[in-house]
């Protein structure tokens, strides 16, 4: 074995750190929230949502909140802002205006094409209009209209549509009406009280990315300053405010909590270890961070920022090993002998911790796998760094610690009396049983919104929006996809018919006015059959009634000509008038409009609807039964995430527990020792389960992550405690365990005060877990061990 001098060891350490840093610098760190999602199904759905442009949709509600402005200012502001966003390179699909009388213009354009649009249902509604009573009523209305002041200029329309068939077509346009409750005035989308104006746009930058969101916010703020009249207040709804609120919340938390935790931690080390060199103890394990990041980056090609952040946190477990080494060496007569003694427990602790992270590699959540890789490689490297470098800085023969080993001698002497042992064990068993009882009552929350941290402004704006625009219930989307546009229309029309069959209360669909070629052909056939059956009776009745009212014989020639239509099925998109094209364009997504390569994308057509419990299960069946029809709904993801989460928590926890149990059994070859080692783990898990059950808190993905970490930490406490009893070594191990536990409590306890719910959940979980594991390691593990190793030592000379 090569003996390296201290200087050589430092040089090698620094060199490896620098190499690791160089490699790590080239890794792509992304801000992709999708890495937090378990399973490919949920991620696939959310990627689809992104392809549809819905994730990057910006909804702006302009309001007259005071007397300073009036409706004219509001309209002027809405128009100006809409135009500005429309011309901006950062926005697309801006909807803010419909041309005057777009419904009539649409009808005029589509009138020759009605035979392609009218399906069986429409023809059923047409039948009474062609009856003698219907004819008489329609002609009388036409006569009255032609002679009234409002009838000037309506001649051509009446000649072409004396029966009012346009009302059947306008009925189809109602399916384009947005889910919001609004009126169209001067082309603008206004609330019914005419105090709010709605503008919808799509950002060209990804709004799930914090930097892009901040940039878009700046663009919008500048636009508001340029276009809005005084007294007109803008409110933004959608992904943008949530991304910014989350980013700001995390930044705010870290800005405040990180320094507090650092100061407290450093203070703890200095106060307890009373040596400035002890500060290096915390730093040495983190030398492994650059290399660990590099290794993770090479394996995964890129890494999420969240995985990076939490991976480094998990790396903090390795600080425990450095502290054990430092304290042990300081109190040891011979460093060499001490290192021989401590080698096995450190190896075992590293093995158990590593096994826990290996288990986490099987998590359904990509970011967990990245974190596990980072933590696994980091812990192993950190132990190596600690092993070779801590002896170089640890003071020798020093017992100048604030909490001396004497305190632990007192603890263990008190704990060694039979009565004390029984009490301690009883308390522990009660905790264990409570945990077992609580476990089945644990609630899982797969709702991704639990990881969201909207601030008060975001929540108020959303409440105001719901109230103003009467947004009802949970919104869902049904996406019809196909390689060809016409196939997508066909799927979409199928969805439309299913929604009618299911009596869905309200939904937005383009199917009635943009049927597929096959549906158009079927409609055309129906039209010809209808008139072939009815035309001659209808014609004679109509002309007779018309003559009675004074109409000339050729008055309605345009109408009769339209019955003998020569029109053929074709693409109808280009027949849409301008304003409607934009509206419908938002519901059709061409491959080139989606992120990624166009040739890998399908044509996507969206139907929007509000769901309730009964409708949801039918829609889920529709999704499952059809490959190219996808339901996108919060409830669907929540169910899937909860299923995967429950699977992960149970499976991974059991796997981690099994691994550490097997490793411990093999190492100690004693059930009692194994129980003593695992006692802190059992206490940690039981305490977390009891806490969650009693407080009614629901477990989410962050709890899973921290639960794994708590297992890794707790088992280390048990290992060092049992080893210290086995070797009858000084109670330095108990001191080290305590310092490690307190440092974890400080670090994560501070986090429990975070604004961000995800960070707060982490903090509370670790606080409870370590808070139970630490006293268990100090009191219960020795009580379980009892006199197991006393005879061993008494036999030795």
């Amino acid at each position, binding site marked *: 074995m090569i003996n390296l001098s201290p200087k050589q060891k430092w040089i090698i350490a620094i060199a490896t750190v620098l190499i690791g840093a160089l490699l790590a610098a080239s890794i792509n760190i992304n801000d992709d929230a999708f890495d937090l999602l378990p399973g490919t199904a949920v991620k696939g759905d959310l990627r689809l949502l992104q392809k549809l442009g819905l994730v990057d949709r910006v909804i702006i509600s302009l309001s007259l909140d005071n007397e300073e402005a009036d409706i004219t200012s509001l309209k002027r502001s809405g128009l100006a802002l809409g135009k500005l966003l429309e011309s901006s390179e950062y926005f697309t699909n801006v909807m803010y205006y419909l041309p*005057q*009388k777009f419904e*009539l213009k649409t009808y005029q354009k589509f009138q020759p094409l009605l035979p392609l649009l009218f399906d069986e249902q429409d023809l059923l509604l047409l039948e009474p209009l062609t009856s003698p009573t219907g004819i008489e009523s329609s002609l*009388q209305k036409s*006569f*009255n209209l*032609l*002679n*009234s*002041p*409002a009838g*000037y*200029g*309506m*001649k051509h329309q*009446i*000649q072409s549509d004396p029966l009012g068939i346009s009302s059947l077509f306008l009925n189809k346009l109602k399916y384009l009406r947005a889910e919001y409750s609004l*009126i169209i*005035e001067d082309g603008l989308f206004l609330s019914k009280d*005419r105090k709010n104006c709605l503008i919808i746009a799509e950002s060209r930058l990804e709004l799930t990315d914090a930097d892009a969101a901040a940039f878009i916010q700046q663009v919008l703020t500048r636009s508001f300053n340029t276009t809005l009249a005084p007294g007109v207040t803008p409110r933004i709804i959608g992904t943008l405010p949530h991304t910014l609120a989350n980013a700001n919340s995390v930044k705010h938390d870290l800005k405040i909590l990180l320094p507090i935790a650092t100061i407290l931690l450093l203070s703890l080390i200095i106060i307890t270890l009373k040596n400035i060199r002890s500060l290096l103890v915390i730093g040495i394990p983190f030398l492994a961070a650059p290399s660990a990041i590099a290794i993770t980056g090479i394996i995964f090609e890129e890494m999420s920022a969240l995985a990076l952040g939490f991976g480094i946190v998990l790396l903090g477990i390795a600080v425990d090993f450095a502290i054990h080494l430092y304290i042990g060496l300081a109190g040891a007569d011979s460093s060499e002998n001490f290192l021989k003694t401590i080698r096995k427990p450190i190896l075992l602790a590293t093995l158990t911790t590593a096994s826990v992270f290996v288990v986490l590699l099987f998590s359904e959540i990509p970011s967990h796998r990245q974190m596990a890789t980072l933590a696994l490689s980091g812990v192993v490297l950190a132990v190596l760094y600690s092993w070779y470098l801590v002896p170089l800085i640890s003071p020798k023969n020093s017992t100048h610690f604030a909490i001396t080993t004497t305190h632990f001698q007192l603890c263990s002497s008190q704990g060694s009396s039979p009565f004390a042992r029984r009490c301690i064990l009883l308390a522990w068993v009660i905790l264990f049983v409570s945990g077992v009882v609580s476990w089945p009552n644990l609630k899982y929350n797969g709702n991704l919104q639990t990881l969201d941290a909207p601030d008060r402004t975001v929540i108020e704006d959303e409440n105001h929006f719901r109230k103003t625009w009467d947004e009802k219930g949970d919104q869902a989307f049904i996406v019809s996809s196909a390689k060809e546009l016409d196939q997508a229309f066909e799927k979409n029309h199928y969805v439309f018919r299913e929604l009618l069959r299911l009596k869905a209360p309200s939904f937005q669909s383009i199917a009635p006015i943009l049927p597929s070629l096959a549906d158009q052909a079927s409609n055309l056939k129906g039209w010809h059959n209808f008139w072939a059956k009815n035309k001659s009776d209808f014609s004679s009745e109509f002309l007779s009634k018309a*003559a009675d009212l*004074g*109409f*000339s014989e050729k*008055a309605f020639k345009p109408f009769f000509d339209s019955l003998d239509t020569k029109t053929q099925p074709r693409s109808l998109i280009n027949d849409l008038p301008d304003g409607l094209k934009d509206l419908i364009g938002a519901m059709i997504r061409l491959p080139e409009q989606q992120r990624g390569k166009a040739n890998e994308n399908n044509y996507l057509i969206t139907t929007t609807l509000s769901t309730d419990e009964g409708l949801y299960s039918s829609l889920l069946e529709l999704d499952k039964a059809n490959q190219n029809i996808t339901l996108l709904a919060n409830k669907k993801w929540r169910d899937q995430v909860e299923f995967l989460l429950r699977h992960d928590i149970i499976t991974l926890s059991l796997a981690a527990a099994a691994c550490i149990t097997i490793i411990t059994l093999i190492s100690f070859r004693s059930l009692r020792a194994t129980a003593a080692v695992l006692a802190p783990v059992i206490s940690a898990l039981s305490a977390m389960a009891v806490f969650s059950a009693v407080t009614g808190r629901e477990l989410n993905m962050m709890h899973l992550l921290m639960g794994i970490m708590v297992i890794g930490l707790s088992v280390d406490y048990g290992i060092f405690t049992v080893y210290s009893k086995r070797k009858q070594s000084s109670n330095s191990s108990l001191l080290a365990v305590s310092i490690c536990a307190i440092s974890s409590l400080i670090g994560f306890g501070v986090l429990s005060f975070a604004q961000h719910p995800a960070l707060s959940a982490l903090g509370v979980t670790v606080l409870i877990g370590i808070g139970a594991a630490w006293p268990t390691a100090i009191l219960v593990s020795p009580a379980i061990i009892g006199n197991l190793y006393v005879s061993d030592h008494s036999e030795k000379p």
Partner: protein
Amino acid sequence: MKNSSSFFTTIFAFIATSILLLPSSPAFSKDISLEELLLDIRKKSSALTTLSCDFTQKRSLALFNKPIVFQGQLALIRPDKLRWEFISPVPSVLIFNGDKGIRCNDNDKPVKFDLANDPVMKMVAEQLWTWLDGDYSRLEKEYAIKKTGDSAILVTPKNQKTSNLIKNISIVFDGENRQPKSVTILEPGGDKTLITFNDYQLSPTLPDTTFTTCFISD
């Protein structure tokens, strides 16, 4: 439809503006220029707040075998109340009252409209009330006006879209009292509408129900 509304409001404007003329205006003498005539009309219309009269509408459209004749009554109160009522052959009423209105006929329920939500009626009303303040010069921006006789003027639209619906409008005034006797609207293609007015009542007392109720006898 916008053009038809402009067409309609033009007719109304001419009718309303014309019937606001007071009798025996020396401005209607042979020698008066067009500008003096417009000025005189504006002065006299501002002095008149309410009026009512009977009218006969005869529409000669290619759609019909023979001209269709309707009898009716008109009532108005400046600045924003108007009632156009057909009495025969098919009773119907069109009322504008502020920013709201009602369309009624004998067989169906009244249809109330809000000018804020009904762009067609809104355009009709907006232009109509613009005309009713008697500022005839506004008409000159969009129409060419010409005197065609001692008591007649001819208005021709300048805008191409409007002229697709209206060829011209001719107004004939009574030689004695200078009230309009008739308004003839000629459309491209030969369709024609002739409205003749009689039995004027200037500044009558009009009950509120005139502009709130469809059929007063109800």
